[in-house]
């Protein structure tokens, strides 16, 4: 046995077993207390690739077919989706990045495993056991269960985390003892070597570590030196930290088509919670959320939610999402759902005691979404006048209180128009070229005063050209009611129109 000096490094290995099952169940908390299995492969060759503890207690093992699982009865069968797993892995990695920027991914069958270089983090997070508890707690908030091992040796931490559950902290120079009960399969040897060790009666790393190096190397060659180093807990490893990309994305694929908004929102709620938790961990807020759904029949659905200010309010974001989906409902049942958020800085609002109260931005967002659901998305907002001579030419833009321009314009006290949309067609009687009487539907009006005409035309080269003749008319009906209105003669259609009232 080699004697070593006290190393400077400290590693935390995190191993989430049965990762395909965890990737799905973290977004389906209702299923966590039930036996669930995940099947992989194409029918009818589907086999169990991951399962939870409840399913294991019911006797399910890896490799079972769907038929065998069905025979056990009352077990939820889920389908394995690569994108769901990839998204979950990103979330898992992102959670670990809270504890160290130096992370290396390790190979693990049917699991997601990372080793963190936590050297020097004791002053931030406390002693090793405290760090392990914090990591486990952080993973738990995003829906993962993982075994954690902290050790000064990289490979010892990795192997111990894979073959144990819960939290293990291995003291310096106790690596060999900690690894002793681990099966020899942890070394990922070739099959013939396993057979040889089986013949020798070697089944654990402790038994392998007890073999003399001088006797082992002539029989297995140089690789056996590395095996011994691994089993004795002093293997050397060059740490290769990965470059993690920060992406706020959640994805879930449904086993059955979703047709109800309530069901969809139930899943959305967990996804938003996760997005908010991840953004909050970096002192960020959600500035926008993109909703992507794949619908039955390979159609796609895309909508984007833009809160007025970046927000971490889960209920508010969920309400916005509910109103957005209600205003633009998908045209078919939903197969999968992806939420991708853009992070933004927390909003800082300077309040003023002497200013008039303004609508609260987040509350205004919900109000606007509700108003759009009532009146229509294109019928709620601020009017913007267009640079055109066409009468009544404007467009509606999104109402926002962030970019208010306070003008020092004065109240001019001018008479206002009330537009008739669309303009009523009138039956007009003329007298020497001037309006003399007209009928608006069945109501007859006698014109007492008519000022005009004022010609207006434009866009003669385009389809939407106009050529109008405007008259300001005072008219009285049979009951003596007097109106002042703007009457228009449309030369293109040869019609007289009631365009607006002066009011």
């Amino acid at each position, binding site marked *: 046995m080699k004697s070593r000096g006290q190393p400077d490094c400290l590693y935390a290995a995190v191993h989430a077993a049965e990762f395909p099952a965890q990737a799905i169940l973290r977004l389906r908390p209702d299923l966590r207390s039930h036996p669930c299995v995940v099947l992989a492969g194409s029918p009818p060759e589907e086999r169990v690739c991951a399962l939870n503890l409840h399913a294991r207690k019911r006797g399910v093992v890896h490799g079972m077919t769907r038929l065998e699982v069905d025979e056990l009865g009352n077990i939820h069968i889920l389908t394995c989706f690569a994108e769901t797993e990839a998204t979950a892995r990103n979330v898992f990695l992102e959670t670990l990045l809270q504890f160290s920027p130096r992370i290396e991914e390790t190979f693990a069958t049917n699991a997601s495993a990372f080793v963190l270089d936590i050297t020097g983090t004791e002053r931030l997070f406390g002693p090793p056991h405290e760090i392990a508890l914090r990591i486990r707690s952080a993973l738990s908030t995003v829906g993962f269960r993982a075994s954690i091992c902290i050790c000064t040796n990289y490979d010892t931490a990795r192997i111990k985390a894979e073959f144990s559950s819960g939290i293990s902290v291995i003291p310096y120079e106790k690596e060999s003892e900690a690894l002793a009960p681990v099966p020899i399969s942890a070394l990922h040897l070739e099959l013939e070597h396993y057979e040889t060790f089986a013949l020798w009666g070697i089944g654990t790393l402790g038994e392998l570590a007890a073999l003399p190096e001088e006797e082992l190397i002539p029989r297995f060659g140089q690789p056996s030196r590395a095996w011994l180093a691994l089993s004795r807990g002093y293997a050397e490893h060059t740490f290769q930290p990965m470059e993690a990309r920060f992406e706020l994305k959640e994805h879930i694929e449904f086993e059955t088509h979703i*047709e109800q*908004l309530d069901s969809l929102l139930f899943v959305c709620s967990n996804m938003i919670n996760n997005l908010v938790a991840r953004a909050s961990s970096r002192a960020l807020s959600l500035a926008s959320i993109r909703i992507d759904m794949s619908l039955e029949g390979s159609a796609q659905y895309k909508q984007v939610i833009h809160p007025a200010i970046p927000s971490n309010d889960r209920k508010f974001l969920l309400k916005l999402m509910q109103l957005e989906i209600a205003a633009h409902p998908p045209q078919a049942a939903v197969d999968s759902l992806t939420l991708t958020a853009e992070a933004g800085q927390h909003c800082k609002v300077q309040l003023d005691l002497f200013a008039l109260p303004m609508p609260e931005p987040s509350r205004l967002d919900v109000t606007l979404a509700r108003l759009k659901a009532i*009146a229509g998305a294109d*019928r709620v907002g601020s009017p913007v006048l267009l640079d055109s001579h066409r009468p009544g030419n404007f467009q509606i833009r999104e109402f926002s*209180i962030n970019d208010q321009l306070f003008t020092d314009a004065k*109240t001019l006290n001018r008479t206002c128009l009330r537009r*008739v949309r669309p303009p009523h067609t009138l039956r007009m009687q003329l007298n020497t070229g001037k309006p003399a009487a007209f009928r608006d539907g069945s109501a007859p009006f006698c014109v007492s005063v008519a000022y005009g005409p004022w010609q207006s035309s434009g866009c003669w080269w385009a389809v939407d050209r106009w050529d109008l003749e405007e008259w300001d008319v005072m008219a009285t009906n049979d009951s003596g009611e007097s109106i002042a209105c703007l009457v228009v003669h449309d030369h293109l259609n040869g019609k007289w129109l009631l365009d607006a009232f002066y009011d």
Partner: protein
Amino acid sequence: MPSSASLRKQIESAFEHRYPSVLTPSAKAVREVASTGISQIDDLLNGGLPVGAITELTGPASSGKTSIAIAALSRRIQEGGVCAWVDANDAFDPESAAANGISLNQLLWVRCSGTQTANQPDKFRTSNFRQTQPWPRLDQALRATDLILQSGGFASVVLDLADESIEHGRRIPLATWFRYRQAADRTRCSLIVLGKAPYAQSSAAVVLECEQAALDSANHNVIRRFIYKVHRHRERFTSITSIDRKPPASIWSAHAMWNTEKRA
């Protein structure tokens, strides 16, 4: 013989556990008002439209009620507030508003329309995603006003029912107006209701009836200004003596939007 002051004290102390200060008149709070920008109407209303209350502007077409509402909104927006116009008949004219000094980006315009099919907002489908439910125009306007008032932060909200028939307007439940009054009071918002007749009844703080008085023209070929008359029918927060002293009606004029000399 005990003095009246000691008697009052005895009676008040006797009833104190049930009615505090039973014989002492409660102090009158000075109601906040917002100027309309039209001096004649401000004089008629002791300073302007009440804040946190409902004001009704009634009258037939071409009676000037829209001009008063836009002038009031213009004033509130110039003070830095944000306003909303709930348009039951899609009659609002942005050009007129801009001509009256309204900064349009501070105005939320809700255009209700009977032809628009809106989605049911709160509940979703029971069977699939495609079901929709149409909302009548008036119902849309009432729901939108309710939402805006409840959300708070708007200095003034106009509920434009000027083109609705009187029969429809009177079918609006009183509970709706009570709710509006409470919400307006809580959020310090002036709710201005335009209609052919008063609908809010006891919930309205002020009711003004508008009518057209005359038309002033230049050279008999261009409208120079409209002259309107305003009658005060109800003013809830003003003492009786004050109302008696003030004239019941006022005349004001609104100039045409165009340059009269140039147009003539």
